[in-house]
C-alpha cells in the first residue's frame, strides 16, 4: 500500500455560476456566496468533510474562481492543510491534447482521474459546493459498505411540486434503486437525489471513461452517469437523509435558508459544538451594539457596529447600521454599510453595498428584493 492511499476522498463540484442568484453571482461563483453571517455556502460541504474525518478533498472550480480560491486557501480553517491529502483546488487545465473547459459534472471528474488515482481510493464521494446542510458522510459510507453497494445516492423526501426540479428516483424495500429520472415532468416518486454520491472508484473510473467516449453524452452525473448505471443494473442504493438540507439556487431560497437560522424549530443548528461549521475568519473586533440600538431575533457577526433597529435579520461580518435605520427580515452581507434613517424589509443587501441615508426598500410576500447598490 502506498503511503498516499486513502479509503475515501471527496470531490466537490464548485464550478457552477448559479445564474438564478442574479447579481449575487456576477463576480463570484455560487459556492462563494456569503451565508448566515460569517460563512460562504461551500463551508458546509467542507466542514461536513472535516467533521466526517475525510481529509482529502478536491474542489472543481471554473466560473469566477478568485474569491472562492482565496477563501479556500490551503484549507487551514477546515484542518485540511495536511502533509498527506488535504485540499486541492482543481481548475480546468491545458495538456498535450490541448486546453478545454469542464463540459459537465462528470467530465470535471474525468479530467482529474490522475489526481484521484494518486490516492488509490476505494471510494469516492461526489458533493455539490452549493448546498446548506449538516451531514455525517461516515454514516453514509457505513451504509454503502453494509449494502455492498457500487453506488449510493443520498436522497430526501420533497413535495410533488419540488420533485420536478430534482433528479427523482424509485427504490425497492431493500433501498435498491430501479428507476432514475432527471427533472421529470410527471415524477414517479418524491424521493429526490441530493447530488451526493458515493461510488466505488474502480466502477466510476470505468464509467467516466466510457461516458467521455460517447459523443452524445452531456457528461453529467444526473443526466448520464447515474441513469446509465441504473439501467445497466448496477448495485445503486438510496440512502435516505432526514436532516436539514437546502439547495439555495434562487434569491428567495437563499433568503429562506438564512431565515431558517432564526427559527428555533429548524434542524439547521450552527451552535452544535460537535459539528462546527468552519470558515475563513476575518480579523474583526467584537460587535458593538450602541446605546440607542435595538436588536431582536437576529444573528449578528464580528466587527459590526449597530446603531439602529434590527429585527428578524442576519447581519454579517463588519456591517455598519446607522442610527434610526430599521432592518426587518433582511440579510445584510459582509462589509455593507446601511446609513441613517434607512428602512429595509425582506431584502438581501449584497457585500460591500452602501445604502444611502433615508433609503426605503421593501419586498413583499412573493418577492425578496436584492439590493445591489446600482
Amino acid at each position: 500500500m502506498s503511503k498516499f492511499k486513502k479509503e475515501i476522498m471527496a470531490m466537490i463540484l464548485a464550478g457552477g455560476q448559479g445564474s438564478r442568484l442574479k447579481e449575487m453571482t456576477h463576480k463570484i461563483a455560487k459556492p462563494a456566496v456569503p451565508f448566515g453571517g460569517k460563512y460562504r455556502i461551500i463551508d458546509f460541504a467542507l466542514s461536513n468533510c472535516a467533521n466526517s474525518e475525510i481529509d482529502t478533498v478536491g474542489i472543481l472550480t471554473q466560473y469566477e474562481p478568485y474569491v472562492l480560491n482565496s477563501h479556500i486557501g490551503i484549507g487551514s480553517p477546515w484542518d485540511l492543510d495536511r502533509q498527506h491529502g488535504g485540499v486541492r483546488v482543481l481548475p480546468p487545465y491545458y495538456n498535450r491534447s490541448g486546453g478545454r473547459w469542464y463540459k459537465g459534472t462528470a467530465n470535471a471528474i474525468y479530467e482529474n482521474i490522475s489526481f484521484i488515482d494518486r490516492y488509490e481510493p476505494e471510494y469516492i464521494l461526489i458533493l455539490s459546493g452549493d448546498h446548506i446542510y449538516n451531514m455525517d458522510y461516515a454514516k453514509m459510507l457505513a451504509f454503502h459498505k453494509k449494502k455492498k453497494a457500487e453506488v449510493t445516492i443520498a436522497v430526501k423526501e420533497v413535495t410533488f411540486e419540488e420533485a420536478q426540479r430534482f433528479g427523482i428516483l424509485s427504490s425497492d424495500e431493500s433501498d435498491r434503486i430501479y428507476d432514475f429520472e432527471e427533472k421529470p415532468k410527471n415524477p414517479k416518486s418524491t424521493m429526490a437525489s441530493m447530488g451526493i454520491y458515493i461510488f466505488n472508484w474502480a466502477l466510476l473510473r470505468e464509467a467516466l471513461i466510457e461516458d467521455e467516449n460517447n459523443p452524445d453524452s452531456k457528461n453529467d452525473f444526473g443526466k448520464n452517469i447515474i441513469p446509465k448505471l441504473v439501467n445497466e443494473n448496477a448495485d445503486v442504493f438510496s440512502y435516505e437523509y432526514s436532516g436539514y438540507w437546502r439547495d439555495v439556487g434562487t434569491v428567495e431560497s437563499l433568503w429562506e435558508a438564512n431565515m431558517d437560522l432564526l427559527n428555533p424549530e429548524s434542524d439547521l443548528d450552527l451552535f452544535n459544538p460537535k459539528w462546527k461549521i468552519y470558515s475563513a475568519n476575518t480579523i474583526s473586533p467584537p460587535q458593538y451594539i450602541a446605546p440607542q440600538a435595538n436588536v431582536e431575533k437576529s444573528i449578528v457577526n464580528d466587527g459590526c457596529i449597530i446603531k439602529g433597529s434590527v429585527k428578524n435579520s442576519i447581519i454579517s461580518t463588519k456591517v455598519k447600521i446607522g442610527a434610526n435605520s430599521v432592518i426587518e427580515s433582511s440579510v445584510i452581507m459582509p462589509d455593507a454599510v446601511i446609513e441613517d434613517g434607512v428602512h429595509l424589509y425582506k431584502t438581501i443587501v449584497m457585500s460591500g453595498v452602501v445604502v444611502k441615508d433615508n433609503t426605503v426598500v421593501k419586498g413583499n410576500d412573493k418577492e425578496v428584493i436584492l439590493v445591489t447598490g446600482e
Partner: protein
Amino acid sequence: MNELMGIINLSASTEKLKSLTEIRTIGSIPIGGRYRVIDFILSNMVNSGMSNIAICTQGKARSLYDHVGSGKYWDLDRKKDGLYYFHPEASSIDIVQKKGDIEIFNSMLGFIKGSKQEYVLLTRSYMVCNVDFLPMLEYHKETGADITVLYKRMNNHVRRFIDCDTVNIDENDSIISIGKNLGKKKFYNVSLEMYIMKRELLVELIEESIHLGDVDFLKQAIFKQIGELDIKGFAFEGYLACINSIQNYYKANMDMLLPEVQEELFHSDALIYTKIKDEPSTFYADDSYTSNALVSSGCIIEGVVENSVLSRGVHVKKGAIVRNSVIMQNCEIGETANINYMILDKNVDVSEKRVFNGDVEHPFVIAKNSKV
C-alpha cells in the same frame, strides 16, 4: 522594518490582579471580549513590521502558550525569525520579590547575540494601546540617543496609573529621573515601559549587571545609566490603559465601549490579532434587549445586556440582567439572575434568580469555573 527585534517580558507583580492571575499570566487575561492582554503588544510589534519576537514567560504560562501558540495568527510562524519563548526556571515569586528578571535575560543572551536586527524593543505585556513603533525608532536614530523610552503625558488621570513608572523629562526630552506614580500628582509622564536601544547595548547592560551583581531587574540596570548614557523620552499620544489591578482591568474594558476608543484600537488599519475560535455568529432572541455592549461571536442573548463586555460563547438566559459587567468566555447567566458591576472569569455558571452586585470602584470577581 527588519532592524528591530522585540522582547516581551511577562514577569510582573500580579498582587493587585488577584484571582485573575492565579491561573494565568497577565498576558493571557481575556479582555475586550475576544482578546487577551498580550494581543495588543504582539499585534503592535507585528504591525510595525517586526518579525523576530521573544516572549519571556513566568509562572503559570500554559494559557499563554495555548493562546499564542506558534504565533500563527500574528503571522509569526516563520522559517526566518518568528516567535521564541523563554521560560525561567525560578518561580514567579522569586523573580518578582527576590532575584529579579536579570537572570532570564542572561539566559537568553545567546538568542539576543545571534539575532540579526540592529535594534531591540523591550516591552512588558500589560500596556493596552495601538502604537506604531516606527516613528519611535526614527526618533531614536535621529537623536542618536542610547536608549529611548516611550511615555505618555497624563493630565488629571489621578487614579489610573498607580504603581506605574513615571519619567521626568527636561526641555530636550532627556530623561533626568524616574519615579513611581503614587496617585497624588495630577500631571505626570507615565512610562509605557517600552525601550528601544541598540542590541549591542542590551547585551552590554545584561553582561555588566551579571558581572557586578548590583541589580536584580533589567529596568534598574537601564535607569542606573541616567547621567551616564543619553536616555530620551518619546511621547505617545494615543489611548493607553495599564492592566495592573482589578480596577484598571475593569476600567479598560469599559473604555472599550467608547466609540472613539473602539475606533482607535480596533477599526484603524493596524488591526489587533488574536486566536481564532470558529464560533457561530451571536444570536439575539425575541424580546432580548442589548444596549451599549461589546459582544463577541457565539453568544446567545435572551435577556438584558447593558454597558457590558461579553466574550465568546456567553449565554444570557431569559429574564437575566447583565449590567456594567465583564463576562468572560462560556459563562452562563441563569434565568432572571441579576449581575451588576461584576467580572465573571471563564466558564462561570450563575444559577437562576441569583443576584450579584459589585461596585464601580470595586468590581467583584467570580473565579474561573465557579458555580454560583
